[in-house]
């Protein structure tokens, strides 16, 4: 008897699970059917969501690409060592060789003051003016590249050490541009994050409003279903699925838009890379990125629908 009761309740549980599953399938199919029934208005919703998601995602992809370029520079820091005016060319060359033997220095390049003057006159066209000077105003220069694995502060220490030497007039660490670039990137990432956050919020609200309209359109049906015993979850389900479909479609559209704009940029970027003798190629979203975008869209759709449903469905009661 006891066993019979237990197995009966188990079948009942399985029945309930099956009917729950059945209604999920039914709601999913029915709401997908409703979404596809009005292809133009659904397409508009998908496009709005797609564009709103594609904007931050596309910018982020662009930034990721920019970051791969900036980290591919192998020697981020260089120290320009300007020597005192009275240092002879020979001493300067000796110093260049001596510095090159140090462990913390990867490379040194000597630019003599005569080379610098010649270069300056050809570049500027002031050759007459320069020829009239009775002495060369330019100093000898040694470009010192610290080892790339050294941290930023070892380069700074090296710079201080070089600065202290008597032959050296000034040692300049060319690192500021890199710091500037990095903080610019950080700033851009935050701007994208903020804009992305706003747009994501917009997407949720747009979807919430779309679902609210769907609820309004089916008000009579909701009343009838509640009158003949449909639970809140039963009434809620098709609308949550509607939100899901709008979100998934929007995510798909945004993945497509990002892919399209990267394809549009690919050729000029490759040409540019070729001109800079770089083997840089643009990196897209990839299949996983696209799928993530679709999943994200789906989640946003669900949350928009949940928002609308929680606000509007309970107010519809049989009167």
């Amino acid at each position, binding site marked *: 008897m006891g066993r019979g009761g237990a197995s009966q309740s188990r079948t009942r549980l399985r029945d309930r699970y099956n009917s729950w599953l*059945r209604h999920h399938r*039914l709601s999913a199919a029915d709401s997908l059917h409703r979404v596809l029934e009005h292809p133009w208005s659904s397409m508009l919703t998908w496009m709005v969501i797609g564009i709103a998601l594609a904007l931050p995602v596309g910018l982020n992809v662009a930034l990721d690409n920019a970051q791969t370029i900036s980290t591919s520079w192998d020697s981020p820091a260089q120290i320009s060592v300007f020597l005192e005016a009275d240092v002879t060319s020979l001493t300067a060359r000796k110093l260049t060789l001596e510095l090159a033997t140090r462990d913390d220095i990867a490379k040194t390049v000597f630019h003599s003051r005569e080379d610098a003057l010649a270069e300056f006159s050809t570049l500027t066209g002031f050759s007459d003016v320069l020829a009239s000077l009775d002495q060369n105003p330019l100093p000898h220069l040694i470009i010192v590249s610290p080892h790339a694995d050294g941290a930023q502060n070892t380069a700074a220490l090296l710079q201080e050490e070089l600065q202290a030497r008597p032959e050296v007039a000034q040692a300049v660490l060319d690192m500021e541009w890199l710091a500037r670039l990095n903080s610019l990137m950080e700033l851009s990432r935050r701007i994208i994050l903020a804009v992305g956050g706003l747009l994501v919020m917009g997407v949720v609200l747009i979807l919430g409003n779309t679902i609210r309209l769907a609820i309004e359109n089916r008000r009579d*049906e909701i009343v*009838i279903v509640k*009158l003949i*015993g449909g639970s809140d979850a*039963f009434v809620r389900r098709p609308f949550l699925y509607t939100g899901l479909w709008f979100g998934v479609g929007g995510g798909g559209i945004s993945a497509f838009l990002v892919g399209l704009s990267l394809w549009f940029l690919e050729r000029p970027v490759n040409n540019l890379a070729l001109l800079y003798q770089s083997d840089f190629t643009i990196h897209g979203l990839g299949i996983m990125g696209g799928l993530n975008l679709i999943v994200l869209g789906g989640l946003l759709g669900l949350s928009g629908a949940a928002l609308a449903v929680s606000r509007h469905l309970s107010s519809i009661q049989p009167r």
Partner: protein
Amino acid sequence: MISFERISKRYGEGHDALREVSFKIEKDELVFLTGHSGAGKSTILRLIMLMERPTRGEVVVNGRPLRKIGPRAIPHYRRDIGVVFQNHQLLFDRTVFDNVALPLIICGYDHREVGRRVRAALDKVGLLSRERAMPIALSGGQQQRVGIARAIVAKPTILLADEPTGNLDPALSAEIMHLFEAFNQVGVTVLIASHDLALISRLHHRIITLKQGKLIAGGAH
């Protein structure tokens, strides 16, 4: 089956819809509820459906005091009651079949069982051949019969009807009433609100009469 114990219902504006109404409807009974509009017929149906709660008194349905049924338990409670509405309340974007199937879908029957039961219900109301039709293509009497098929498809123990013949001519009205009698004969408790006295007095069932919220006849069994 259904018992009203000194039920009063006062709406916010101070209007008394029901005053101290008591009656009992036994299982297998068919009872008419009549009175002018505003006499409280609909309020009684709404109290049974738990669309309203009484201001005073206790309603008991199938042995359960309704005040013990909380908001979350209402859907489940309603599944055991079939309702026929005056204006049919059909879903006009779905076929006759889908309209009738709705209560079964809500209860979670699998689709073979749904098909079997929907066809049986449509057969009983004489609309088996129209299962693929849209409600808009049907006459008023046919639409009402779809509404009845939907009300009985899940085999409820209680069937409520609010002016089910409101917009129908006398011949169709009599036909609809005979349909209710047929369901009553197979053991369904039926309560029909109707102001068509000429029709219901011919049918020889108990008639509960309300006037301005008070029960004036038919309360005693």
